[in-house]
């Protein structure tokens, strides 16, 4: 990265990447609509869109990395990046809030209401005890096992918390210009993250094969899989970003003073970590 910063605020050249991205999303949307409505080849269309999106992500972020390494970004641009990452994470928090809100709503309001005398005409005998797959499943005596907080979830909590620590350790390495510590720290973080994802996949496998716990297992299955699923998806994104940062670190990118990309990914990772703590408490434990 060049040591002197551009004097003016960087305004990028015209770029066709946004157009590529929009095209990709349009194709993906159509593909998903076809796929979900069992129209033949919908899946292929969706994959094609995904491929275009991947090309766009490589192209666009590649361009940004080149610009960054080429010294186009002055400190004011750096500050803009910080603001934007903060607000982006806030938008993600709000996305999760919708699903947490749904969970609180059903636990505090709708499930007890369904078990109340006012509903006895429709759902008589419904116990309303959490975890529940709802009155219909209960009446049909369909059994399932709920997830316990001990075991894999606890292990995953420890994994993610440690990964936060190794990431901070990597950051210290960066600040001290200790490249070895930086790379090792990042490597450990990625490894912990991937292990987490592996455990999560195993947990899902167990749920489907041995616990009769599925996405369609009433409101418990819905909230459990949607919350942990979106979280797992975010961990996967975060791990991917960490891998990019790891590769860039090995290539010698970043300086102790200028390494916004690293910090952005670190913020994101900590955000994913915090969401997990919330999940651990309200989805697995309580």
């Amino acid at each position, binding site marked *: 990265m060049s040591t002197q910063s551009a004097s003016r605020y960087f305004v*990028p050249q*015209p770029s*066709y990447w946004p157009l590529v991205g929009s095209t990709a999303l349009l194709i993906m949307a159509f593909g998903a609509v076809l796929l979900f409505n069992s129209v033949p080849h919908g899946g292929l269309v969706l994959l094609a869109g995904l491929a275009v999106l991947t090309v766009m992500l490589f192209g666009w972020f590649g361009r940004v990395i080149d610009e960054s390494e080429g010294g186009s970004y002055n400190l004011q641009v750096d500050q803009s990046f910080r*603001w934007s990452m903060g607000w982006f994470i806030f*938008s993600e928090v709000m996305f999760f809030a919708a699903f947490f*809100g749904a969970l609180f*709503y059903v636990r505090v309001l709708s499930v007890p209401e369904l078990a109340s005398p006012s509903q006895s005409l429709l759902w008589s005998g419904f116990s309303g005890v959490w975890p529940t797959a709802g009155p219909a499943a209960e009446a049909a005596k369909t059994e399932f096992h709920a997830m316990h907080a001990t075991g894999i979830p606890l292990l995953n909590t420890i994994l993610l918390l440690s990964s936060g620590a190794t990431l901070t350790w990597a950051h210290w390495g960066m600040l001290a210009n200790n490249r070895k510590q930086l790379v090792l720290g990042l490597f450990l973080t990625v490894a912990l993250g991937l292990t987490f994802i592996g455990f999560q996949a195993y947990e899902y496998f167990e749920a489907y094969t041995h616990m009769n716990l599925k996405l369609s297992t009433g409101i418990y299955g819905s909230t459990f899989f*949607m919350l942990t699923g979106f979280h797992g998806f975010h961990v996967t994104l975060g791990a991917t970003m960490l891998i990019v940062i790891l590769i860039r670190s090995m290539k010698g990118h970043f300086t102790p003073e200028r390494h916004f990309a690293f910090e952005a990914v670190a913020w994101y990772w900590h955000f994913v970590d915090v969401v997990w703590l919330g999940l651990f408490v309200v989805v697995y434990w309580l």
Partner: protein
Amino acid sequence: MQASHDAHAAHHDHAHDDHGHHGRAPGLMGWFTTTNHKDIGTMYLWFSFIMFLVGGAMSLVIRGELFAPGLQYVSPEFYNQMLTLHALIMVFGAIMPAFVGFANWMIPMMIGAPDMAFARMNNWSFWLLPPAGTLLVASLFVPGGAAGTGWTLYPPLAVQMGMGMDMAIFAVHILGMSSIMGSINIITTILNMRAPGMPLMRMPMFCWTWLVTAFLLIASMPILAGAVTMLLTDRHFGTSFFNAAGGGDPVLFQHIFWFFGHPEVYIIALPAFGVVSHVIPAFSRKHLFGYTSMVYAIAAIGLISFFVWAHHMYVTGIPLTGQLYFMYATLLIAVPTGVKVFNWVTTMWRGELTFETPMLFALGFLFLFTVGGLTGLVLAITAVDIQLQDTYYVVAHFHYVMVAGALFSAYAGAYYWLPKWTGFMYDEALGKLHFWTSIVFFNVAFFPQHFLGLAGMPRRIPDYATQFADFNVISSIGAFGFGFSQLIFLWVVLKNIKGGETAPAKPWDGATGLEWTLPSPAPYHTFEDAPVIKDEHLAAAH
């Protein structure tokens, strides 16, 4: 100003010229790839106007059907689809993008910034809109037709609809991405790119309204994304969020939707407040009265808007205490809104008023938005709303705030800044004609709907009892008149682009702000080096 600016630019070495002085690439590709905030603002504005005409045509299908009792032109299913698409297209395709267009054009010029903070992402925010619009319009042609749930997308109907519903869901996802990226861009631009010497508490009011609006968008659009995602999984993957048999609840959707939906109405209204806060002072030749209280009022409205959502749900069986809380909380919003109306009126007090088209539209806004606000207060009162919920009274109410409010304000802004954009004065006589036909036909179309609602005519139904016939005839005549009046605006703009009287840098003698220090039309690149801010460029007189 511009001369010294160019001289300044010439001193810069080539490395900088590399990324500063390229124009738009020729042809369509230029518009696809542009990173210039003015180009992107222009695209937003045109897109929104085209969508406005599309959504307007749909509303005329609705009003045509309602011209007489009984079913004449369309099936009830198609009526519902028109109703839903009309609303989705007007809200997400016309009004919101119009104000994002203003933000793109004006915010960098108002705060002395070279462009938006993220010019390339800015392009993406815009180019996500056409795919979303395509999905919505194309959904009319798939088996089962478009979503027919109304723009609120309530389950269980939304879970039962055909694939048009999925297309609406994905359109909402894409629109949400666009809004969130656009908002991040706007917030960052305002917070980080003001020219030195422009404190937050003296920046133009339009920037303040957008700062709060962008916050509302970032906080609420993801909630909507979550809600429609749950719809999608309930539709196709067997989840039970909105299904009581599985332990969920259809009312849950309403809570989530309106947690987004109420802030959404302020997402539409706040930038409209911002535009009016520029136009009224300019044509009163005074400073905006009560700048600081205006800022606090905007912030208060933004904040409170997150805590009133269930005033849309009084009849869903929420507990009495809930009804009372949401009633009082909603009524509370009248306080900051009242502060704003008071300030606009006081700005005019003893001003040297003139009534050019922008001012006319701003005054139209002021009168009719206030009417819409007052009927909002009526609806906020639980006991009254239990009668009026889902009647034409509600339709009248929200069209007063969205059409005579937001849309009129957008027109005020368009006439106000057109000279800066094109370099020519628009045709004042045509502008006035546009205003007077609009305001007359608007009231003809929507005022009778208050009476229809009070008399009990339900909304979202293609047929009605014969005692409602007369008012519906009047309303439909007004609607068609209003719709065709909007073509006058198209004519004004096309004429204005071609030419006209050359506009000076500051065509309005009472206008203040940095944008008027630039020549008209504003050059392709402005403020590549931060301007020197003088006291007279700043808002809020000291």
